[in-house]
């Protein structure tokens, strides 16, 4: 929750494989992700916010090079970083599982104890407006449990650690 972190957790995931054929008769195995890096989507948007007018898309290609003058050796690291988007997750359980593993980490203080945050206020104590200023800025979602559309009107802090009351309104497909 504190923005871009100093340390990252990285997981190595086995790529899926499938057979590939062509009209000449060549047969091979393909690995569709081919060394791809999947990136926490919140980090992708935070990076773009920091880049201002030079912002890139959701998918980026990181390029790192280094050189050791004493030994005359060097290296290059290049890999594609794919931000996990809602679009991807809607289409694949694989991405939904990855999102859960990436981001379902309890907010903690530096001493490891869970922290009681108030997400409704900024660091100066001013309210954070997430939704509902205008019809276009309202947060809507589809609830796949009951098949209905909802608009979030407001979020308020409730009694208890990290407890909130979510005011939501059932709407039709026109909002």
């Amino acid at each position, binding site marked *: 929750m504190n923005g871009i972190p100093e340390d990252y957790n990285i997981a190595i995931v086995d790529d899926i494989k499938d057979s590939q054929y062509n009209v000449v008769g060549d047969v091979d195995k393909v690995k569709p992700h081919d060394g791809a890096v999947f990136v926490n989507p919140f980090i992708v948007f935070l990076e773009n916010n920091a880049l201002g007018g030079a912002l890139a898309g959701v998918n980026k290609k990181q390029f790192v090079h280094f050189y050791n003058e004493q030994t005359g050796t060097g290296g290059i690291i290049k890999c594609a970083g794919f931000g996990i988007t809602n679009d991807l997750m809607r289409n694949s359980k694989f991405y939904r599982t990855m999102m859960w593993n990436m981001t379902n980490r309890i907010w903690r203080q530096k001493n490891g104890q869970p922290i009681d945050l108030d*997400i409704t206020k900024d660091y100066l104590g001013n309210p954070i407006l997430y939704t509902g200023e205008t019809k276009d800025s309202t947060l809507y979602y589809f609830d796949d449990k009951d098949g209905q559309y909802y608009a979030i009107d407001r979020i308020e802090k409730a009694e208890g650690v990290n*407890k909130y009351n*979510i005011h939501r309104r059932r709407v039709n497909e026109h909002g």
Partner: protein
Amino acid sequence: MDENNEVIDETIMGKTINSNYALWQTFGGYNSMELKDGEDVLTPSENSIKAVVNAMNNIGIVKPGVNPKEVET
């Protein structure tokens, strides 16, 4: 809203939000929708992710001994 612009239904849900994932789910998760400019039908959206980023950019952590109002730019 229905055809007569009347509120259809309103509920208050109690929820524990203690991780970025829980916050993203609160905003609709991957079922996030939006009304795009010039359209009157809800379409799939990335707004739930952007709303979490909005929280990250605003909440911040105030270091001990620092008055945030003095360092505001």
